[in-house]
């Protein structure tokens, strides 16, 4: 069908804009499926996320009269449907079929045109039909390279058998259950310690009190040891996520016609499995961006006096109870001018104020997509999505770039989502937990030290002016600011903000529980926990508060 025949032909760029990110997510999910199936994880959650995306690509392609994409998306939809019904067919051959189809789909969408050659799509659809009709044994056209991988997989299994005697497999949910019990132990310890303090306050010191004190301290140490042992069993080396990158970098670079090598460091850095599971997609995004948008072509690099082969680095390291991950490249760097121009076009919130740091602009929703369509030298594909995913993990993301030298993204993540070392504060008679990762300092709030500028409290802190918000206003428990005795300075990703509170209660490791979505909590609350006295307390989302959460004013 020629372009003129389709009434929506002029929307071709909009089509690419909408479908390419979807197609790329589909590819990522397929690669991840392959990895998880190899680890004998059925990955039903991942399979379940696919039909919606494929369906949208199919519908859009149909409207645009782009039959090859429609057919491939349809075939993949069918294949995923079959795999959802038949877990027994989830094997390497099926994964390879999906990865190949996802790659083809993304490729077709990327180069969308009414004059596309339909042959590769037809061949692929035929391959899927044959696979559907077969009994699930590896397809005859399996590439030699993949067989090699299979053999290596077998070798690993053999080596693993030697270790098997000292290793047991445990369902991750049982580790969660153990953590719950530990959490209760920690709460009971807090209750005991509080009772002791009350007794000491009333009765003063004697020998029995000393023994009780020692027992309470010893119990705390034991619980701490239990906690760290339990946490260790939940932690996996970040290499389990890094492992997929060498191949991905090779494939992506090849598809882009570029030479890129990947250097990794810190793969042994441990992270909670729950964090790792949600880290994979943002990292793939960043690394793909580095290759597709950050890296110049070989001839351009040579002319610029750089080695023809580009380097992408993926590094992780533990740092002060958190894990810092850096994704960097030695490519062209961000095109600040182009990004500012795009941000300006996005509207008043982002209007070209040169004082807004680039790092705040690049994570704006919508900016990335505009970049992609115009194929400007810059990049920023879905960086708002990446930042959102990192923030949801209680992490921060920052960018550093130099024109001609490269770009580096630095992520800081909590080691675990299960336990958060927190500062407990009181605001309007309610207690709240503030994760210490984002607490810079607590300050006594002298009334004359906080001034009002543009109806917002402002205070001097370490030589800078920072906004200080009333805790009750942020949480919606009061309509107007109240006099409060302290403020907590919170910091993340270069942002700082004070939060006025009535009392500072102390530090405590809190076991994080999810929020019941039915409860209409303010958006600055990320979860709940139970305190030493059995009271339920909300855990405040420092990143949201720093962003000026809905009611932060």
């Amino acid at each position: 069908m020629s372009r003129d025949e389709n009434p929506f032909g002029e929307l071709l760029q909009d089509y690419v804009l909408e479908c390419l990110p979807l197609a790329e997510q589909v590819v990522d999910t397929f690669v991840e499926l392959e990895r998880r199936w190899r680890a004998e994880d059925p990955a039903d959650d991942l399979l379940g996320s696919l039909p919606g995306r494929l369906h949208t690509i199919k519908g859009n392609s149909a409207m645009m009269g782009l039959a090859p994409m429609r057919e491939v998306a349809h075939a993949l939809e069918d294949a995923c449907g079959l795999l959802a019904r038949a877990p027994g067919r989830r094997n390497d051959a099926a994964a390879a079929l999906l990865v190949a189809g996802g790659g083809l789909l993304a490729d077709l969408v990327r180069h969308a045109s009414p004059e596309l050659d339909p042959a590769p799509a037809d061949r692929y659809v035929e391959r899927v039909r044959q696979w559907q009709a077969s009994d699930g044994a590896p397809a005859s056209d399996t590439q030699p390279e993949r067989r090699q991988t299979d053999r290596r997989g077998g070798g690993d299994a053999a080596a693993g058998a030697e270790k098997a005697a000292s290793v047991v497999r445990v369902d991750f949910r049982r580790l969660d259950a153990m953590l719950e019990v530990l959490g209760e132990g920690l709460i009971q310890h807090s209750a005991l310690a509080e009772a002791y303090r009350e007794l000491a306050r009333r009765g003063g010191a004697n020998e029995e009190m000393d023994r009780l004190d020692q027992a309470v301290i010893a119990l705390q140490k034991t619980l701490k040891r239990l906690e760290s042992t339990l946490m260790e069993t939940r932690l996996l080396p970040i290499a389990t996520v890094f492992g997929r990158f060498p191949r991905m970098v090779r494939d992506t670079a090849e598809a882009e016609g570029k030479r890129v090598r990947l250097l990794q460091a810190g793969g042994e850095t441990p992270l909670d499995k729950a964090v790792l599971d949600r880290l994979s997609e943002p990292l793939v995004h960043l690394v793909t961006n580095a290759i597709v948008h950050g890296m110049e072509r070989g001839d351009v690099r040579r002319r610029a006096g750089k080695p023809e082969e580009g380097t992408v680095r993926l590094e992780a390291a533990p740092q002060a109870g958190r894990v810092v991950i850096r994704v960097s490249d030695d490519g062209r760097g961000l095109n600040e001018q182009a990004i500012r121009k795009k941000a300006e076009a996005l509207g008043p919130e982002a209007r070209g104020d040169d004082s807004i740091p680039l790092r705040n602009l690049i994570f704006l929703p919508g900016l990335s997509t505009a970049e992609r369509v115009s194929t400007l030298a810059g990049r920023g594909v879905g960086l708002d999505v990446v930042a959102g995913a990192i923030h949801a993990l209680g992490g921060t993301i920052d960018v550093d770039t130099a024109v001609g030298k490269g770009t580096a993204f630095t992520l800081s993540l909590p080691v675990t989502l299960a336990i958060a070392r927190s500062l407990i504060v009181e605001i309007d008679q309610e207690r709240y937990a503030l994760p210490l990762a984002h607490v810079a300092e607590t300050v006594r709030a002298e009334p004359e030290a906080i001034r009002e500028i543009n109806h917002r409290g402002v205070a001097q802190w370490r030589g800078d002016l920072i906004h200080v918000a009333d805790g009750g206003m942020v949480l919606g428990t009061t309509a107007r600011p109240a006099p409060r005795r302290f403020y907590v300075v919170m910091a993340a990703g270069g942002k700082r903000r004070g939060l006025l509170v009535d009392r500072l209660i102390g530090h405590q490791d809190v076991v994080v529980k999810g929020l019941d979505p039915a409860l209409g909590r303010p958006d600055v609350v990320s979860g709940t926990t139970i305190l030493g006295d059995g009271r339920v307390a909300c855990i405040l989302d420092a990143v949201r508060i720093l962003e000026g959460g809905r009611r932060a004013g």
Partner: protein
Amino acid sequence: MPHSFLVIDDSKLHHQMYRMIFSRGPLAGSTVHFATNGREGYGMLAAHPELTLVLLDLNMPEMNGLEVLERRRAESLHPHIPVVLVTTEGTAEDEARGRAAGAWEYLRKPFQPADVERLVQRALAEAAPAR
């Protein structure tokens, strides 16, 4: 009086397509409201009793098309406004469920601008006495 339409679809591309349809030919000058999910769309439907026609996508996050129809029927929200359920390769079964839930018509992708124009003409003709 110019017509007014509501498009409920999570695809920005489809918003663009409808924008083209409603800004050219016989429907030029129409007002079009857009929602990106069923929840938002339901709110906009409630706020616009003057709508000529609603185009409702079946597959959406946060309340799909069927859920919108079912809630609308349960709450008898503007029953005079015809709602067209839009699907990709929907089965006869889908169509039956859509109609049972109160869809006035059923539109399959891929469709042409003329298909939408015809639906609007029919909606005007059928709905006129009821208003």
